[in-house]
């Protein structure tokens, strides 16, 4: 087994242990297909407006009106090449695609699609450099966060990426996130619940070696 395969396997094992859904994909097109299909097939109302189905106070109910009742994918900070492929796929599936002004959608977005900068296999974490506020928000207010992680960007341990982090932090201002699984809480009776403030689901698509470079 190659060293990289070992890292991929460990990443998948650790990430799945914290409820991340992991899949290895061969090409970016496959990742886009995955995101669009997931968004198209997901139960719109239930997950989409998480919390809206429950009895709420008046101001909180108003917020549900903020949301456009059309499915949305947010894909900020994506390459033009990727967007060129994604736009027709979304149009065909009847899904709105947004890139900017995510603060206006704080009521919720169906899917946030991002490209991870690095991965850490022994904790199943992705590292996302997101000083861009829209990119940051896509990983916070989306019901489902899908991150594409290139296999060659996976490292074994957080100490292995110290130099990379130093470069990011030195280039201030900077906002960098380690994300490991969906948002979670155990604050009521120590019972684990997913999706308290951030995404209810976290998906990592590991982009294999065939698209290396």
């Amino acid at each position, binding site marked *: 087994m190659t060293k990289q395969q070992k890292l991929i396997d460990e990443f998948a094992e650790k990430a799945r242990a*914290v409820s991340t859904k992991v899949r290895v994909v061969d090409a970016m097109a496959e990742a886009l297909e995955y995101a669009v299909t997931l968004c198209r097939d997901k139960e719109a109302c239930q997950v989409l407006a998480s919390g809206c189905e429950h009895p709420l106070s008046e101001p909180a109910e108003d917020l549900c009106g903020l949301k456009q009742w059309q499915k949305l994918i947010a894909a900020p900070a994506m390459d033009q090449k990727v967007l060129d492929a994604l736009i027709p796929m979304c149009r065909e599936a009847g899904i709105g695609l947004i890139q900017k002004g995510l603060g206006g959608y704080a009521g919720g977005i169906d899917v946030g699609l991002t490209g991870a900068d690095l991965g850490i296999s022994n904790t199943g974490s992705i590292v996302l450099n997101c000083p*861009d506020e829209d990119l940051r928000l896509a990983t916070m207010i989306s019901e489902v966060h899908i991150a594409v992680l290139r296999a060659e960007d996976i490292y074994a341990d957080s100490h292995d990426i110290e130099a990379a982090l130093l470069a990011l932090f030195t280039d201030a*201002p900077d906002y960098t996130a380690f*994300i490991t699984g969906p948002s979670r*809480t155990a604050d009521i009776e120590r019972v684990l619940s997913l999706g308290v403030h951030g995404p209810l689901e976290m998906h990592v698509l590991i982009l294999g070696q065939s698209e290396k470079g």
Partner: protein
Amino acid sequence: MQTAGNMKDYRKQLVAQLKNGFQRKALDNFAVAYRQGREKNFAGMDRQALVQGIRAAKDDAASRMDELYAQFCRRAEAAGVHVHFAASDHQANEIISRIAEENDCHRIVKSKSMTAEETLLNDFLENRGYEVIETDLGEWIIQLRGEGPSHMVMPAIHLSRNEVSRLFTEVTGKQQDTDIEKLVKVARRELRQRFIRADMGISGANFAIAETGTLGIVSNEGNVRLVTTLPRVHVALVGIDKLVPGIREALQTLKGLPRNATGQAITSYLTWITGANPSAASHSGRKIMHVVFLDNGRRALARDPVFSEALRCVRCGACANVCPVYRLVGGHAYGHIYIGAIGLVLTYFFHGRNRDRQLVQNCLNCQACKDVCIAGIDLPRLIKEVHVLSQGSEDKPVLNSMAAFVLKRRRLFHGLLRSGRYMQKPVTRGTPYMRHLPQVLFRDQDFKALPAISAKPFRDRWDAARHSPPHPEYRVALFSGCLQDFVYPEQLEAGMGLLAGRPVEVTFQSRQGCCGLPLYMLGKREAAADLAAWNISHIDPAEYDFILTFCASCGSHMRENYPFLLEGASGRRVKADQFAAKVIDFSSFMQMVMPDSEPVPAATEKLKAAYHAPCHLCRGLGVSRAPRALLTKFGYEYLPHGEEETCCGLGGTYSFKFPEISAEILDKKLDAVSGTGADLLVTDCPGCVMQLRGGAVRQGRAFAVRHMAEALAGRQT
């Protein structure tokens, strides 16, 4: 939040918490689950090395706090951050209030910060008319209830889903379900609108990295990210002890913090913020960002020879998770604002002596917190040292001073003990237990049968017990300890019997006194140091290979605390170190030094034995294998149980101060032993024997309680 003004009120509060059925059950389940998960959480890691690493890094950072602060300021200010220094809690609150005013902020969302709890920031801002909403689910719940946290990581662990459901019904004006999943979603939606409306976000930070001017914040819920992103102003309130030199030190601590706190390898989110990032809500397009560093005594603490290690704390909450007292009474009675063992220490410095005076005495000295601390803080010692400080000159408890007076005067003390055997006659009625104890001295002590003082102390039996082998291989000084000398001399006699015929020359130096632990436990540091010096001068370590004790508490105190108590005493400190190095407990001596002890012939009846590991043996002296191996070697069927290493509840004088808690801890232990079906409960400390046997006799339990020496005696060929 514990605010009792005197011991009577504090005990009332503790009794009320003991009656809180839901909390008792929740904390008990948690204590067991946490203990079971501990090994798994650090599987494949060198935990000791990690503790050493975190400890060294924190000590280094504390030693150059001002330098790191200056470096952080330079980097952060260059990246557009306003950095403030707050000397006191009040000053921090004023600074934050002024930032809100200057930026015309009215609605504030907060993520969890123990530092903001420390300064009572919410109360301060609300009094000035600001709306402050906690967004961490647990913190929001307790804020709505008007309570403080009952755990540093799980602030609402004392509440049931029913209570949360009732609370949410009140807050939303709609009837709520009791399903936890649904309650969480209601909070998600209710709080999301608060994020959107807010103009200011307040966070804490786990790290302030000097080399880059970066804040590092851990979170599972993701509220930290919304608090630091959606509003146009971000203020971080950070204890100045959170400064670390570089990324490496932060990453190192992160390998231990979540594992120790919640058993996670890493939290869901780790947020690193450097400088004022882009912000759509801000007119300038950039976040208005302020970092307020709080001193509040930390810089002075960093220079303190004893207490500086309190600054190693990474706020994981594990010292509460393993504390047998916390397990029973919860955080509202076991802390003022900071909770658990570290809370007993920090309360004195951050919230004052009056808030800590009762609280700091509520410690069994069982060492479980020291054992679990990921930063290697000697919490039991710091608690004792705060206890010493918290006793002001005007209010020395009469009993403590009397004890110090007597215990320091060996002849007087021993004379009193000798005469005690006559005076106790009316209460023992000829049995080995005290009956009808005088209520004045022994209020609320009837949960266990207290032993009578022996008719003949060990020192008077020594001549009969001694034996001199012709060619001794080991020269050993016996340290008897008061309890075995005057109450349980038969335990020492049994031990001497086991050593008879072996090449060991045992000396009993009759001028030895009390080890001093009881006085240290009462906050009498100087008297304890005097006794340490006395014993070291009468048992010269240079003359012996080992200093043997049958009392785990004496042993642990002599090894751990003698060098510390004689720290500044030139010459004596050297002797104290040499003395400490030679202290050995009976089980280790029998198993490790006398490896050729004869096994029991197969014909011996197979008795079933459960074991109680004295805190001062398993954690204090780090001995765990030897006693269990001895039981098996001497023909017992050893039956393990889940509470083996939990304190018996004696804690020396603790059980006299807090009898209700001591009794509950004892019950839990006895239940676990009964569950094994053992014939015998064996332990290595006369104090534990007193507590366990006293409880077992009073409750008519089906097993007998024996000191290891008694259990082994008579089972050798």
